[in-house]
């Protein structure tokens, strides 16, 4: 009982209202605000590890997962986060809805909006889709990934995983490796990790690097060993299989040879290096199973756990803002 009371107390004392009505990207976050979100998420980690995992913070609130793009883990993570906060959650996916009948994104959003949800979690294949929706609805919109643009809760969960592993993010050398060009995870992580004082490097073949990447404030490397030399953390990005058949890189085997992470290449990193991956992994393509599954170096399972906690923090902080405003 005491422990449960402590957790509840920690959540109450760390709860705050976000400065913005929506959570669309790390681009709008300040350092104090992101740190406050991580502190709050820490409390939700404790809650999720307790036998009684539910709070009543979002009781009576309705949360809708609107996923236009397939995602099992992110959708599940948000759903679980909403449920643990006591919200009523529902899922809507395009293939089973009227989107297939030619209804536009905006029409779908307006229809949902008329049912007065409090939180709309949006994933869409087009950059800017969540921002577009947020202009048309009265509830709070959370970006669960828009095209190649942002995936801000992923960046938060990565930062939380790192902070819990090292006690800090400031000063950490983090190498983000692989398909940076098509990666919203990379864009959000570069923004947030730099905000929190980490030294970010980007590693990958030139065909998978965005134009002007040298001006992102990160070191850019095309050689994996050099790129991860001395790194505290190596974050591997998923490479879509259709991009490997000569489209962006010649073949899976050539990619693994030069950019896949195995124990031998990882030896170039710091001795205490931790390895991360946003999932789902292509084992044997961008990462070797031996590395991904080694509990001494892999943070991959932590990332999944932290995902639920940071999403709870974001939902709670958005909701708190609405209540404060009301």
């Amino acid at each position, binding site marked *: 009982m005491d422990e449960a009371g402590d957790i509840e107390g920690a959540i109450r004392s760390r709860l705050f209202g976000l400065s913005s009505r929506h959570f669309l990207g790390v681009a709008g976050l300040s350092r104090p605000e992101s740190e406050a979100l991580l502190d709050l998420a820490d409390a939700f980690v404790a809650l999720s590890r307790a036998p009684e995992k539910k709070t009543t913070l979002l009781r009576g609130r309705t949360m809708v997962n609107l996923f236009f793009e397939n995602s099992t883990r992110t959708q599940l993570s948000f759903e679980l986060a909403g449920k643990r906060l006591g919200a009523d959650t529902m899922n809507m996916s395009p293939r089973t809805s009227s989107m297939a009948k030619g209804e536009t994104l905006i029409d779908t959003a307006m229809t949902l909006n008329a049912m007065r949800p409090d939180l709309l979690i949006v994933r869409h294949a087009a950059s*800017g889709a969540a921002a577009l929706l947020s202009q048309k609805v009265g509830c709070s919109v959370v970006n669960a990934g828009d095209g190649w643009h942002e995936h801000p809760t992923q960046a938060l969960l990565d930062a939380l995983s790192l902070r819990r592993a090292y006690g800090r993010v400031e000063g950490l050398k983090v190498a983000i490796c692989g398909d940076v060009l098509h990666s919203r995870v990379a864009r959000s992580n570069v923004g947030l990790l730099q905000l929190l004082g980490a030294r970010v490097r980007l590693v990958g073949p030139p065909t998978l690097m965005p134009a*002007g990447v040298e001006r992102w404030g990160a070191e850019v490397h095309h050689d994996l060993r050099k790129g991860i030399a001395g790194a505290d953390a190596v974050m591997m990005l998923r490479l879509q299989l259709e991009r490997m058949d000569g489209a962006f890189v010649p073949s899976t085997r050539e990619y693994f040879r030069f950019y896949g992470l195995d124990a031998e290449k990882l030896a170039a990193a710091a001795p205490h290096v931790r390895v991360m991956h946003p999932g789902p992994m292509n084992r044997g393509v961008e990462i070797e199973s031996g590395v991904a599954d080694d509990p001494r170096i892999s943070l991959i399972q932590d990332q999944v756990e932290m995902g639920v906690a940071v999403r709870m923090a974001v939902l709670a902080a958005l909701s708190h803002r609405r209540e404060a405003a009301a």
Partner: protein
Amino acid sequence: MTRPNPPFAFVNARLVDPESGYDGPGSLVVAEGVIADVQRRPDLPALSGEVRVVDCSGALLIPGLVDLRVKTGEPGAEPKETLKSASRAAAAGGVTSIVLQPDTDPAIDEPAMVDFILRRARDIELVQVYVAGAATKGCQGARIAEIGLMAEAGALYFSDADRSIVDSKVLRRVLSYARGFDALVAHRPADPWLTAGACATEGEFAARMGLPSAPAAAERILLERDLTLAELTGARLIVDQLTTADAVQALRRARERGVRATATASINHLSFNELDIGDYRTFYRLDPPLRSEDDRQALIDAVSDGLIEVITSAHTPAPAEDKRLPFAEAAPGAVGLQTLLPALLALHHEGRARLLDLIRAVTLSPARLLGLPSGRLHPGAPADLVLCDLDTPVVIDADRLISKSKNSPFDGRRLMGQVLMTLVNGRIVHQATT
């Protein structure tokens, strides 16, 4: 057109005539649909009683604008824009001649279609409507369209509009064949492979926004091919929408070799740059996409030094349902008939270009290129005229534009110059309500 107006006399005007290079006080008489007299002094002696005198109070009197790149939705997509709504928008914007693009549904790729459009337009009796015919059948880039027959039916030039002809052999034959009729061919230079799927110009900004993008060099790559084919065939080429500094240099080199190429630029690319797409504003989703500020400045310089001879509105209506989408999924293009002149005058007020050079690029130059008698203040020329208050700021409210589609990137912007009166063949087709 019917019902000729009684004679008009415009006095106390500021005349700008790109043909003579005159920019100064003057007066002008219109009779029987043509310009009857032009005087370089503010008043006219001995006017007969039947003449209607318009005191311009120093307002600008210029030839009506000739816009050689206008799209409507007719036929095939009338909810976007009809010939009538486009004609009304043109009249309100001081555009007295428009050339319609052939990529309609069905395409204007045979003489009966040219004739059909021209007849429909004639019944509207507002502005002069002309047609560009397709360069290839269905604008598909595979087989040469009936260029000779369409020219006979009145098509002014030939183009596949937004589509680049990928196959160099096809373009070579289109150019060669057109040369036999001394017909003009317009072509969009955009490397189709580099630009496939792109909606922005490659660079730091588009990368941060996570938008699929193509390098600006995609324009120069295809332009060099087009210019080389024009050189090979001796044909007359219109470079449809030059947008990059690199391509400007490529054109300059080709012109020095004597290649018969005339370049156009859209008012959008002279007015905006890639940063305007920030916040994913789809009214700035254009094809070609907006470029860097350096590119924009290079275009303005090229207009000033005469390398880019023609400015167009690139009028491309897209209704709300095609624009209220995520940026990459939204339809490209912007309406521009009503904002072309105020946007040009805003450029002039910025001090970046001479009034005479800007006006030439929307009047005399396109008229000469297309062999039209308009675009000049000369006795005997058609009385296609615009009276415009140069110094009146206007704030564009897209919802109040006449076009059926309201996709104006100038929405909310402060431009210069209120169109007071538009005349076509001496007949008033628009008059500002004050």
